């Protein structure tokens, strides 16, 4: 049985709905030399800023029950380094490229977006939700007016599809989703890591190296929470929603799709299983065959009343 796994996000066409999440895949080389990137729906690059960022000094990783905390602080080498070092290689791999962008000001977001031509990226994911930086990041994603300003500025700076990565730690996430949609977002990623922390009981201090001692929780522990957010947000907007949080298996992906997501992103599952995104894509396709589902569209929102 032939199954059609293709999805569309604005003008972006993807072979399948299984992407890799920003921050877990850098710019693709570390994993993409083992398995073909072209077999994935898309890859979201490391969050990339106008200038290089050093990231958090201190502990950046802590394992938690059924998950992990990270506090990378968006370390990256800047958009110019991305353009010089990575675009050509990613294009050689026939990867569908979603460049995740970050900034400390609205103007910085717009400036990064403006540097990306259709040669350099197939879409832009606007990260307004990183919990581990003191400037930018989640500051833009937890203030409705700032969300509007950032999305508006990026929308005006690029003709590429714009995906806005929402913060999970807001009241009324649907309102942020609607605001992003109203200001021109083509799709929404729901969501980023959930703020969390761990205490080193011997040292009597927070484990993570951020000034606040906190980090972002990801992994299976967050999946039920983010799944509910996807359920709620897809009811509030007309644009596609991409589920991001705790996808480690194809069954997780199917749940997100049935909740209303048009695609999923696999993140920290890579650390345990470097084949995870490819395994999820294959498992999803097999599920469609087993269930007699000819088009992925039949699964999207299938669990909704």
């Amino acid at each position, binding site marked *: 049985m032939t199954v059609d796994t293709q999805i569309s996000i604005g003008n972006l066409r993807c072979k399948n709905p299984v992407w890799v999440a920003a921050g*877990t895949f850098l710019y693709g080389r570390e994993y993409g*030399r083992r398995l073909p990137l072209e077999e994935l729906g898309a890859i979201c690059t490391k969050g990339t800023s106008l200038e290089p960022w050093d990231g958090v000094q201190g502990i950046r*990783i802590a394992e938690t029950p*059924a998950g992990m905390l990270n506090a*990378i602080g968006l370390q990256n080498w800047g958009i110019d380094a991305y353009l010089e070092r990575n675009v050509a290689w990613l294009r050689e791999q026939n990867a569908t490229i979603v460049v995740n962008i970050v900034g400390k000001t609205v103007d910085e977001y717009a400036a990064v977006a403006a540097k990306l031509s259709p040669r350099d990226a197939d879409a832009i994911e606007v990260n307004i939700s990183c919990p581990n930086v003191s400037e930018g990041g989640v500051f833009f994603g937890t203030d409705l007016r700032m969300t509007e300003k950032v999305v508006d500025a990026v929308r005006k700076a690029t003709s590429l599809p714009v995906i806005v990565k929402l913060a999970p730690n807001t009241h009324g996430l649907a309102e942020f989703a609607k605001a992003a949609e109203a200001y021109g977002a083509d799709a929404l990623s729901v969501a980023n890591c959930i703020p969390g922390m761990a205490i080193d009981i011997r040292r009597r201090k927070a484990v993570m190296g951020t000034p606040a001692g906190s980090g972002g929780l990801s992994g299976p522990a967050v999946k039920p929470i983010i799944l509910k957010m996807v359920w709620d947000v897809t009811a509030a907007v007309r644009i596609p929603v991409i589920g991001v949080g705790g996808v480690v298996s194809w069954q997780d992906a199917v749940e997100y799709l049935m909740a209303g997501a048009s695609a999923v992103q696999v993140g920290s599952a890579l650390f345990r*299983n470097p084949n995870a995104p490819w395994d999820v894509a294959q498992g999803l396709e097999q599920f469609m065959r087993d269930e007699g589902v000819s088009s992925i569209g039949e699964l999207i929102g299938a669990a909704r009343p």
Partner: protein
Amino acid sequence: MVSRAATRPGRSPSDAGWLFEAYRVADASTVGAGWQRLVLDAPALATRAAPGQFMLVGSAAFSPRASGPDYLKHPFFFASISPEAGQVSIVFDRSAPFAWEMADWATGTEVECIGPLGKGFPVTAEPAAAPLVLIGSGYGVAALAAALAGLHHDRPVALFSVGAPPVSPDPGLLGVTSRITCHVAGTLEQAWREAAEAMPGAEVWAAGPQDFTQEVAGRALGEGRRCLVTVEAPIACGVGACLGCTSAGDGTWRTCREGPVVPAEWLKGVKRP
């Protein structure tokens, strides 16, 4: 800040050089006081691994528990590498938080590994004229035992274990050449003094907890000695993609990629949490 990526010569596995495979535990045994040793049947891995490199190890079956760290795989130095037998081994502290499940792994258990990862000791480099002192603590002694076994050149080598070693170097090595000696010292101070008397001006390789290797690095730099040390950081991906193990001293490096064996000079200015 200066990135140390691609600035250091030496063994550098290609991006595609690591394997993701399931292996069978060939032997599980308690060695030393509280140390557990696992021997894995890992033929392909054993032909690629080098001393000082590491691998990530986790259970083959993923089942999130209500408590206990079991989501990520955990990093271990190779304690032995035997391409002939198709085996590698690791040692770990049975009481470590990550060991809650591993300590019960028995012969026949199937485990998943990603490796070999990172840059190891330059065991196959051209022989240097200077003698070599290997100085380790805890699990670092195991990594150095693997290095000792892997050395291709016949320079005078002394291995010092600060505290009881979790594993002893292969006794057969001592028969290979009279130039290899092994010692147990009570403290780093004692080991350093004995090493200086036995091998003045020796190059130093150190492995173990970073508080320990950082002290070794400081001593070696103070005496103008060539020195390589292992560094530590919490590891998530192990392949350089997540930037979770980035450390900063004299420049920045990914512990899993530019490390875990680094020149002592890099540790200048390192702040430990």
